[in-house]
C-alpha cells in the first residue's frame, strides 16, 4: 500500500477520471476487497465473480466519490452490497430448485463428485467453511488480518472501529475458530457445534 498522501492524490486523480489512476487504485485495494467479499459472500458464490462486479461498480461510480479519504469505507460498502446481491440470487435459485424438485422436474441422476475432487475441496475449503460459522462481526476482521500488510489500525480504519476493538474481535474470533476446529476433529462433538459467541465488543 502507498503512503497516505500519495494514496490520496492517486485517489483524487481516479475521481477526476484519470484512467491510469483508476486502474492503479484498484490494484492497490483489490486484495482486501476480495477478503471483504470472502467474509460476506453467501455459500455458493465465487469471490472472483463477485470481484468482477465490484470492479465494474468501482469504475462506474468512482467519479461520484466526494472525498478521497472515504475510498476504503466506500469500496467496502460496494463489496458488501455485491455480496448481498449475490445472496439474494442464491436464495432465489434455491427457491426455484425447491419448486422444481417438488414438480419432479429436477434431474436426479447427476454423478456425484469424484473422491479426488471431494478430498481436494475439503482440504482447501475446510477452514473456510468453519469460519463461515463465526458471526460476521468477528469473521471480517479475522479474515482481513490474513491480508498481508493489514494491521489492527488499518482494519480499524476500514471498519470504522477503534484499534482495541479490532484486536479484541480478532482474539475472540480466533477462540471461536479454535473451538470449531476442535469440535470438527471430534466425531462425538460434531452434532450441535456452535461457536462460543457472546456480544460484540
Amino acid at each position, binding site marked *: 500500500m502507498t503512503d497516505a498522501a500519495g494514496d490520496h492524490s492517486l485517489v*483524487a486523480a481516479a475521481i477526476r*477520471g484519470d*484512467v*491510469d489512476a*483508476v*486502474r492503479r*487504485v*484498484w*490494484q492497490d485495494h*483489490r*486484495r*482486501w*476487497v*476480495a*477478503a471483504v467479499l*470472502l467474509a460476506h459472500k453467501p455459500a455458493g458464490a465465487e*469471490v*472472483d465473480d463477485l*470481484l*468482477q462486479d465490484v*470492479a*465494474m461498480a*468501482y*469504475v*462506474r461510480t468512482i*467519479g461520484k466519490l*466526494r*472525498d478521497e479519504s472515504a475510498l476504503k469505507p466506500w469500496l467496502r460498502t460496494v463489496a458488501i452490497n455485491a455480496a448481498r446481491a449475490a445472496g439474494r440470487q442464491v436464495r432465489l435459485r434455491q427457491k426455484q430448485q425447491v419448486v422444481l424438485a417438488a414438480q419432479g422436474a429436477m434431474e436426479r441422476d447427476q454423478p456425484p463428485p469424484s473422491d479426488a475432487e471431494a478430498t481436494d475441496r475439503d482440504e*482447501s*475449503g475446510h*477452514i*473456510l467453511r468453519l*469460519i463461515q460459522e463465526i458471526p460476521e462481526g468477528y469473521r471480517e476482521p*479475522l*479474515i482481513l*488480518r*490474513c*491480508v*498481508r500488510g493489514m*494491521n*489492527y489500525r488499518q482494519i480499524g480504519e476500514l471498519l470504522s472501529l477503534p484499534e482495541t476493538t479490532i*484486536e*479484541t474481535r*480478532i*482474539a*475472540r474470533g*480466533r*477462540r471461536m*475458530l*479454535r473451538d470449531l*476446529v476442535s469440535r470438527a476433529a471430534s466425531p462425538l462433538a460434531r452434532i450441535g457445534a456452535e461457536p462460543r459467541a457472546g456480544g460484540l465488543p
Partner: protein
Amino acid sequence: MSDNERDTLLSRVADGEAGEADWATFRTLAEGDPVLWRDLAELQRDNTELSAAVGRVIVLADGVEAPADTQIVARLGERLRLVATWGGWAAAAMVAVAWVTGQTGLPRGTPSQGNEAGLASFSPSEAYQAYLNRGMAAGTVVREMPDKYVLDTRPLPGDSGRIEVFYVRQILERAVVDGMYRETRDELGRAHPLRIEIRPSQPGAPPS
C-alpha cells in the same frame, strides 16, 4: 486473568504485536499453566492454515482488473452523445430564435461607457451590451457564448401565430480568487471546506 484477556494476549503474541509487558505476563502465566504453550501452538496452527486458505482465495484478485478503459470510454461516449444531441438541437433552436426575433443575438449600437447612471434611458438590449462591454474592459467578462438554449416555446393566445420563446443566454465570466474549496462533511455531519488543488491543463494557456 479472564478468558478474554488470555485470548487477547495469545492473539497478540501470535501476531507479533506483543510488547515487553505482554511477554512478561505470558512467561508468568506459562510457569503456572503449561497448557498456555499448547494453546499458543494451536492458535498459530489455525492462523497459518487460515492465512493460507484466505491467501489462496484473495490471490485471485490479482487477475481481476478494473475495466477502466472500456467503462470510461463508454461514459465519455454517452456524455458526448448527449452533448451532440443537445448541441444540435440547441443550435437549431438558436437559428429559430434569431429568425423569429429578427436579430442576431447582439443589439446594434453601443451605448456610451461610464455613464451607467443613465441606464434608464437604455433599452434592455443596450443595457445588456453595456454590461458586456464594461465587463470585458474590466476583465470580468470573457465573451457571450454563441448558443442560446431554448427551454420552452408556446403559441401566444389568440390567432396571431406568434410564439413565445424562453431561452438561456450564456456569458463566460472570469474571476480571480485566492483558492477554491469544496464542502466536505465529517463523521458528525459537520460541513468543512476542503481546499482543491488546481493544476493548469496547458500551463500558461488562458481560456479562449
